[in-house]
């Protein structure tokens, strides 16, 4: 059986340098094992029957014909779920397998295990479900007061923020409504995994995910098994971006494996992947800004509706983010914000990189440009005048105590040189090889936007992380359950160990549930939380080591830059030398500072830390055809401290590409709740020709208090203000209002 192997790699760099990824070589040779590459003797293939209808009652399921197909070993439905037929990332509100009702197109109804994936597919096709088709609820505004489509009701969360003086007003008032379409994470490695049953009724699950322990906790409820009977090991992950935070095939695989007594592998194809995970919440946002002629924003009123789709997932937290940061990275004295996360028969929505901040940032930055116009103030100047700084409060009443170099982020970017004029090249024009546009058809525009993102989980959630540092006869191994999705955490582990222990030869034990939770790989939190846990575990080892040596030598020692120096200065031992021949082990749990829930006025110290970024987009637009080409995106970002420059650049460039996708390319098109473009032919991800060179104007390193190494999370800010910067640039080139993303050719050409 192909196993998940420990990575044992040499590195000679500590924190702050571009250390090489430990998994780089297997990834370039094709040997790296992704969850879809798993294989086992005696393995069966699983497949899922999904509802084609967005709202229907299930009258009957007849799988007798399917079960009779040679090579089919199991067909399971809701009645076969051993424990609770409910799961959910926030709380259990979603069936493992649909019972008597389906609430979204794509909802799982039955699962099959067969000898060959083609047989499994044939079996799925032979299952007869008798549906009573119902009229789907697909309008998020109507959903608020419509007949509930779920026992918990249609309002997943309603949130109000009442900050400052509700009667405050400004000399100038600017109103606008905005819309954000449904984006998809579209990670390259589709959902896949393998469950291996044991004869004692326990099961091992090898899976791509973002949070092993959250998955495990939901699986044991559904299987009615104790914790130690369900063991998860992380299999190679082909990207995540929020789309793997929820359970997808996990329970299904375990059920099939335990039922058949054989290992079961499942791989979603691309079409099924679109159906099989949550998406970014579409949003409808209304704002009314009040400003004075001195350029200060006096009050912001806002209403936000997020379409959460059929099941809750993380809608509650996404809404909180959208609302808490609905006024942007600006010091706003008064705010009245109301938000709803609603349930509809559209596909469920949940985490996607940016997590609520993306939607409101698009709208708020559009408003800021409008306010600037109304005040006859330069848009960048307006942002500078209102920029948050350390010591200011956000609209939840929380004071920013950490680094908040918003002004520096803005000015460093504003001062960055514009791109050099380039020679005309067909490949760089709107339309590209489609040869639609000549120079005379093209106008250039420039746009600017700024964003705020909270780091780590909020509202009182203690998303801690556990790490183990083990020294075995001088060889160092580090173990966390931190999921590596591509972001480079595995590199950081090496760098931290090198930094603290001076050892370049580290074994990274595969992430699994035999160690405590690392929390989710999301919310830009893993460097701070799991990096912090690893740091503490290594430091604990050094402390333990020091105490051992002190006992042996009979004299006190100090750790000076990785060398243990005796009080009398007579003895110096580099830590890596001191560890030779010794065996020690330290396990620590790292917590961030506590946070608190929001009260009924949306007030509370709900967040740990904040990160800021600004983006400047240069676009060429062929207005007559509505075609856009993004020429350059420049950025400045508040990073605390750069721990690995190349990996930081990778996160920034990758995040900006996703922001570009939302601005001009990506949308899941829905018709009565059914996705019309669940494939890569028509869900358009940016290609290398769509994504421009990224200019990093400045990475502001103002160390964040309380953050390990002073480093802030980097992953999400690039996806947030990149989108509104691009749309602002299109507005600049065309003079059009553009209230919706993604901007489509007809939005420009037919106005």
């Amino acid at each position, binding site marked *: 059986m192909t196993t998940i192997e420990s990575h044992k790699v040499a590195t000679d760099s500590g924190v702050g340098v571009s250390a090489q990824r430990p998994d780089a070589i297997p990834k370039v040779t094709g040997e790296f094992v992704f969850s879809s*590459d798993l294989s086992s003797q005696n393995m069966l293939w699983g497949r899922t029957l999904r509802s084609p209808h967005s709202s229907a009652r299930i009258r009957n399921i007849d799988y007798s014909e399917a079960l009779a197909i040679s090579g089919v070993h199991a067909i399971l439905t809701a009645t076969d779920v051993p424990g609770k037929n409910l799961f959910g990332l926030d709380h259990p509100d979603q069936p493992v397998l649909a019972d008597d009702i389906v609430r979204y197109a794509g909802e799982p109804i039955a699962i099959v295990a067969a000898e060959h994936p083609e047989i499994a597919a044939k079996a799925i096709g032979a299952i007869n479900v008798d549906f009573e088709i119902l009229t789907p609820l697909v309008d998020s505004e109507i959903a608020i007061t419509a007949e509930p489509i779920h026992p918990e009701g249609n309002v997943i969360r309603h949130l109000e923020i009442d900050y400052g003086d509700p009667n405050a007003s400004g000399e100038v008032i600017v109103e606008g409504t905005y819309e954000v379409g449904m984006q998809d994470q579209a990670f390259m490695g589709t959902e896949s995994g393998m469950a291996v049953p044991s004869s004692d009724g326990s099961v091992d699950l090898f899976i791509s995910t973002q949070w092993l322990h959250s998955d495990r906790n939901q699986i044991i409820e559904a299987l009615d098994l104790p914790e130690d009977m369900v063991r998860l090991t992380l299999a190679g992950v082909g990207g995540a971006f929020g789309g793997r935070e929820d359970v997808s095939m996990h329970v299904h695989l375990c059920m099939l494996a335990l039922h058949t007594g054989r290992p079961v592998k499942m791989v979603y194809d691309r079409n099924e992947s679109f159906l099989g995970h949550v998406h970014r919440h579409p949003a409808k946002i209304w704002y009314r800004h009040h400003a004075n002629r001195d350029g200060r924003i006096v009050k912001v009123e806002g209403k936000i509706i997020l379409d959460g789709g059929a099941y809750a997932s993380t809608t509650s937290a996404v809404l909180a983010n959208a609302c808490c940061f609905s006024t942007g990275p600006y010091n706003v004295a008064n705010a009245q914000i109301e938000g709803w996360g609603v349930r509809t028969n559209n596909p469920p929505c949940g985490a996607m990189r940016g997590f609520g901040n993306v939607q409101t940032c698009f709208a708020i930055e559009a408003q800021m440009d409008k306010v600037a116009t109304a005040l006859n103030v330069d848009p960048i100047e307006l942002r500078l005048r209102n920029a948050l700084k350390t010591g200011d409060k956000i609209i939840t009443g929380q004071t920013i105590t950490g680094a908040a170099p918003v002004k520096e982020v803005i000015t460093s970017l504003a001062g960055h040189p514009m791109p050099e004029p380039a020679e005309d090249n067909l490949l760089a024009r709107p339309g590209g090889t489609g040869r639609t546009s000549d120079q005379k058809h093209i106008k250039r525009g420039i746009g600017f936007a700024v964003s705020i993102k909270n780091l780590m989980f909020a509202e009182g959630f203690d998303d801690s992380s556990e790490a183990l540092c083990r020294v075995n006869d001088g060889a160092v191994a580090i173990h966390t359950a931190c999921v590596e999705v591509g972001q480079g955490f595995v590199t950081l582990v090496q760098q931290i160990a090198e930094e603290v222990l001076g050892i370049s030869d580290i074994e990274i034990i595969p992430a699994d549930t035999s160690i405590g939770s690392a929390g989710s790989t999301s919310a830009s939190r893993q460097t701070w939380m799991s990096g912090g846990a690893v740091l503490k575990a290594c430091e604990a080892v050094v402390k333990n080591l020091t105490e051992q040596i002190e006992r042996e030598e009979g004299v006190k020692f100090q750790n000076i830059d990785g060398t243990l120096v005796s009080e009398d200065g007579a003895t110096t031992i580099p830590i890596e030398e001191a560890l030779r021949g010794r065996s020690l082990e330290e396990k620590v749990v790292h917590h961030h500072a506590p946070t608190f829930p929001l009260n009924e006025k949306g007030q509370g110290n709900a967040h740990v830390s904040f990160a800021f970024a600004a983006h400047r987009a240069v676009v060429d637009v062929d207005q007559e055809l509505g075609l856009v080409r993004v020429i350059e995106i420049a950025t400045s970002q508040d990073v605390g401290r750069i721990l690995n420059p190349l990996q930081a650049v990778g996160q920034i460039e990758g995040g900006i590409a996703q922001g570009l996708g939302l601005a001009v390319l990506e949308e899941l098109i829905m018709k009565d709740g059914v996705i019309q473009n669940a494939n890569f032919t028509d869900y358009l991800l940016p290609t290398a020709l769509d994504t421009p060179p990224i200019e990093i104007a400045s990475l502001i390193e103002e160390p964040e208090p309380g953050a390990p190494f002073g480093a802030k999370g980097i992953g999400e800010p690039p996806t947030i203000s990149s989108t509104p910067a691009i749309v602002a640039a299109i507005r600049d080139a065309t003079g059009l209002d553009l209230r919706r993303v993604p901007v489509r050719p007809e939005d420009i050409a037919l106005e």
Partner: protein
Amino acid sequence: MSDITEPHLMVNGTKFTIDDSWLGESLLYTLREQLGLYGSKNACEQGECGSCSIMFDEALVCSCLVLTGNAVGREIQTIESLAPDGSLSDIQQAFVDVGAIQCGFCTPGLLVTIKDFLESNAEPTDLEIREAISGNLCRCTGYGRIVEAVRVASKASEGTEETLNDND
């Protein structure tokens, strides 16, 4: 007429006997699940992502769009052939050195594509590189480091130092 008797596939210079029942599979599936060559990836099975790219009779194609039965008698080169004796090719090394790998799922397809591209265009411009890899989707990197890796491998650039100096 040549019908298939004793079907076999020539993959990376090695002859693999295949079963009749595999003829109707996509070559991608056969390579992976039958021959255990998991390097080529399946991210769409529609020819829209390039993660399954292989060399097929010296032409770059998507293996998901090749019928195994029509691959008999053809020369197949997969990602596994890029570093046959363990030492990385220039482009593989460049990917490692310039941070062009994040999750790595798109990486094998890109490497096969780029190797083929550089053989016919040794000193490409950035736009030529981008057009050459426009059939390979990457969701993690935004392509910046990948284009840089091609530059480095083609030796047409001044190297990676320039990029890092631009930060701050």
